[in-house]
Every structure is written in C-alpha cells, then in structure tokens.
C-alpha cells in the first residue's frame, strides 16, 4: 500500500472509504471531492465529505479512523501526512431534498470508492447555487458536465421538484454548452 503522503485525494478517499467499510461503516463520498474526481482535477477540493448510509455511532467512526493514523480536529479528521480534511456527515444521503438512489464505484489501487453519480454531483452543486446563491458551485456543476456524462434532463426534473425551475432555466444554456464541449472533445478523440 502507498503511504498516505503519496496518495492523490481520490486515492485517499478510496483508502478511507474502503477501511470504514471493512469496519462495518458503509459510507458514500459526496460534496466537492466528487467534483474533483468527475471534473478530472479541474477543481480541487480540500476535504472528503462522507455520508454514512445509515446512522452510525461517531465513536465507532472515530475508532476506525484512528486505526489508520487519522487524528481528531473537533468533529473533523486529518492525517498528519495529508492536507485533506475528512468529515463524516450525518445521514441521510440526499441531493437537495431527494434521497440519493444511485451509488457509483471507482476502483483505485488503494481501495474501492463509493460515491454519488456525476448527475447527483451536478445536482448537489446546483443545490448550493439555488439555495445559497453560490456561483462557485454553479461553475463546479458546469465543470462536471464538461468532463463527465451528466443527465441534464434528470437535473432539470430535479430542479423543478425543488421549486427551482426558473433558476435552472437561467443556467440551462451554460450547462448545455458545457455538454457540447464534452461531446466535441470526445468526438475529436475518436477521430484521432
């Protein structure tokens, strides 16, 4: 196993997620690190936000993370060899007000990472734009669409459910443009 100081953020996420799972704690990565992964590092997050699938005693989580060298910093955890913060959130795993239905898995040399899908990742970023007017998150949603296959029809359906139809309409063209960029890049790669 690679030492923690040599792991990328995604490898560290996989390492932590797999270790917690081996200790009976099923967690899913959510938040900004999913943007980092899906947008191929076009955005870099400094923390790993894990959400347990069911309620779990924080003492159990803490004991599991201490086993692999993490230290407590208030309610967060940090490994002395990494600048990345780990936060174990409170369930439920949700995007806006809807439960997350699809969990993706990515395999790294350090373990298997379970994370929200690219579409849910984009929706999660859009939620921050809708509810907190956070334009950084709108840009992150755009980056995810530009680098990964996102179901924009689903994002639109969800936005309507959240009561954000008008806000989605304002950003739809920008997201479609990002999708076109991705498709053009993909087509160019295929003709090479």
């Amino acid at each position, binding site marked *: 196993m690679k030492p923690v100081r040599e792991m990328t953020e995604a490898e560290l996420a996989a390492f932590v997620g797999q270790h917690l799972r081996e200790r009976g704690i099923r967690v899913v990565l959510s938040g900004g690190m999913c943007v980092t992964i899906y947008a191929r590092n076009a955005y870099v997050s400094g923390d790993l936000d894990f959400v347990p699938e069911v309620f779990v005693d924080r003492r159990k989580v803490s004991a599991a993370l201490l086993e692999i060298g993490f230290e407590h910093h208030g*309610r967060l955890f940090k490994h002395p060899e990494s600048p990345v913060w780990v936060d174990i*959130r*409170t369930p*439920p795993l*949700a995007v*806006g*007000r*809807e*439960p997350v239905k699809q969990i993706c898995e990515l395999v790294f040399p350090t373990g298997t990472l379970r994370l929200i899908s690219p579409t849910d990742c984009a929706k999660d970023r859009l*939620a*921050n734009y809708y*509810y907190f007017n956070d334009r950084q998150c709108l840009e992150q949603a755009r980056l995810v669409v530009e680098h990964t296959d996102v179901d924009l029809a689903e994002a639109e359906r969800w936005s309507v459910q959240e009561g954000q139809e008008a806000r989605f309409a304002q950003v739809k063209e920008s997201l479609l443009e990002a999708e076109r960029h991705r498709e053009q890049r993909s087509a160019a790669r295929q003709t090479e």
Partner: protein
Amino acid sequence: MLEPLLGSQDAERALLYLYCLGEGYPRQMARTWGSTFSAMQKQLERLEAGGVVYSRRLGRTRLYRFNPKYPFLAELQTLLARALTFYPDAERQSLLMQRQRPRMAGKPL
C-alpha cells in the same frame, strides 16, 4: 411539545424561533426563551452538525437559519407549525411579535 422527539427543550425552542422569525443568533434566542446562551448554542451546533440548520458569521455573531437542503425541512416545519398551536398565547405572541422591520442607524426608538 416536541421535547420527547427532539431530546431537548432548547432544540425545540431554537427550531420554533427559526420557524417563526426565519433567522436568529443564540443570544437572541436564549433571551427570548429565558434560556442560557451556552445551552442554546450547544443545541444549534448539534442541529448544524445534523444538517438541519446552517450558520454564517455576521460580524462577531453567528446567524442561524434552516438549511434549505435538509431533506425533511417541509415536514419539520409542518410539525413545528402544529406544535406552535399548542403554545400558550402569551408565549406564541412574544415569539411572533418581535420587531423584524429595519431600524435606521442612530434612531433612538
């Protein structure tokens, strides 16, 4: 009213305060309910860790609001509305009738 569910009277009071007034800071909530700052702050921190509320700094105070991303927010607010109807008139009025309109800087009243 909801203490058996929420596990704390101050948590109920903090949530009712936010339900009625939209936002607030711990000292203001504690003063309204005759509670202590530390007890109110502890409950708000717990609610924030659970994703029910969020906070942001405003000068030296920390202002709390309901987290619009909390998946059970609509249901929680329905429950709070129902709980509020069981409160004595005097307590309900003192909560609802707090001045919310702006006051120009320097105005004595």
